[in-house]
């Protein structure tokens, strides 16, 4: 182990942590865009009619689109000199990965949003508040999925690990390095699951104490 630590470059840890910050940045951007698009689709679905049908079809398509393929599509199908409203519109690597995750995040938000709005309409704020832990879960899925950026050269956490692994001579050393990566990704993920569980319990307690959820308040 100490031999491995000697072999790891002194910049490894700061680079890896900076790379992990990129994973969180990508996930945050994808979730923010997904929340905007997902809620628009959720409202359209609940509105019904033509808008509802179009929204349902769009959600089904987005649910089926694989992130990795969408990422390569965005990378290769958008011309380098593309313009939007007269302005240059070249996506950075980070934005390419973030936007490739939007179909997943928007369809997830739309599905959870429709469920939450229905629960709210039926007089069940607790059911509606389940939207928050669901979104937290989606955020951590997005953090893990953002490692796809390694395939297009985005310097996120996994890219840093893979570049460092190239300098290690034995498979054993590489496996230990990969294990370090799993631990570093695992800590925020498992902490997130614990946070989600606490949030769920807290919301349940808060809502059940609230007089607004008494059976008599139902229409």
């Amino acid at each position, binding site marked *: 182990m100490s031999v491995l630590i000697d072999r790891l470059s002194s910049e490894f840890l700061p680079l890896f942590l900076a790379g992990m910050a990129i994973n969180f940045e990508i996930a945050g951007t994808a979730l923010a865009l997904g929340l905007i698009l997902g809620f628009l689709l959720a409202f359209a679905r609940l509105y019904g009619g033509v808008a509802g049908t179009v929204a349902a079809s769009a959600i*089904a*398509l987005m*649910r*089926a*689109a*694989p*992130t*990795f*393929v*969408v990422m*390569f*599509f965005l990378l*290769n*199908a958008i011309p380098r000199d593309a313009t939007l409203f007269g302005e240059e519109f070249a996506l950075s690597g980070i934005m390419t990965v973030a936007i490739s995750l939007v179909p997943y995040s928007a369809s997830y938000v739309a599905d959870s949003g429709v469920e939450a709005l229905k629960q709210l309409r039926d007089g069940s704020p607790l059911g509606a508040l389940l939207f928050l832990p669901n979104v937290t879960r989606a955020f951590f899925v997005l953090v*893990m*999925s*953002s*490692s*796809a950026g*390694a*395939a297009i050269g985005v310097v996120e*956490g*996994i890219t840093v*690990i*893979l570049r460092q*692994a190239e300098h290690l001579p034995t*498979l054993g050393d*590489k*496996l230990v390095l*990969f294990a370090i*990566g*799993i*631990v570093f*990704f*695992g800590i925020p*993920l*498992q902490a997130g699951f614990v946070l989600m569980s606490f949030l769920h319990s807290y919301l349940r307690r808060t809502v059940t104490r609230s007089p607004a959820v008494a059976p008599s308040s139902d229409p």
Partner: protein
Amino acid sequence: MLKTAPAWSLFKNGIINTFILIAGALTATLVFALAFGAAQGSRLRLLRWSARAVTITLQSSPIVLTLVIAAALAHAVFPYSSTVAIGAAIMALGLTNGANAGQAISEAIHSLRAEDSAPPAGGLQLFVGALGRSATQIVAFLVNATKGTPVASFIGAPELLSALTDISSFSSGRVTTYWLLLIFYTVVVMAVVWLCGRIRLFLERSRVPA
């Protein structure tokens, strides 16, 4: 785009390899799900905890890293070939999604045990009941495994994404190529969603009557 013989050959092989990869990933996910579900739902503490530790490890590893680890281990044993790359990808996708689906099965086993109406001795009947109860989760991870198959190109598996990337490097029509790729995978995933829906119905019908 596909007018030359090498391009057509790459495209054809890419499609065949993609279907092999999808079939393999679905089978591996199902097999690992059953194994992890049985292990985590077991009354043997050591077996249960070991399966739980493997599940947490797999959940904590981004899929790209899991693929790289699977490829590194496979190449340590076998010389590099496209078959080995596809095999490693199938194992990685199956393990990742199977562990998660297995966790859902084990939670269903525990919930059935906690219910008064559950069969007291457990066994096969309990396990089949748990499969029915966790059918939605199993199907979700089967679909997830299918959606994950293009990532296999990262470790050199010659599936359609990899083939079309090669084709676009020496032929024209890059935008058409990637439109074709996006449509192909979206349609395939939708077909798998439909197929999995049928499996879910079958599993739900096999639930133990309360």
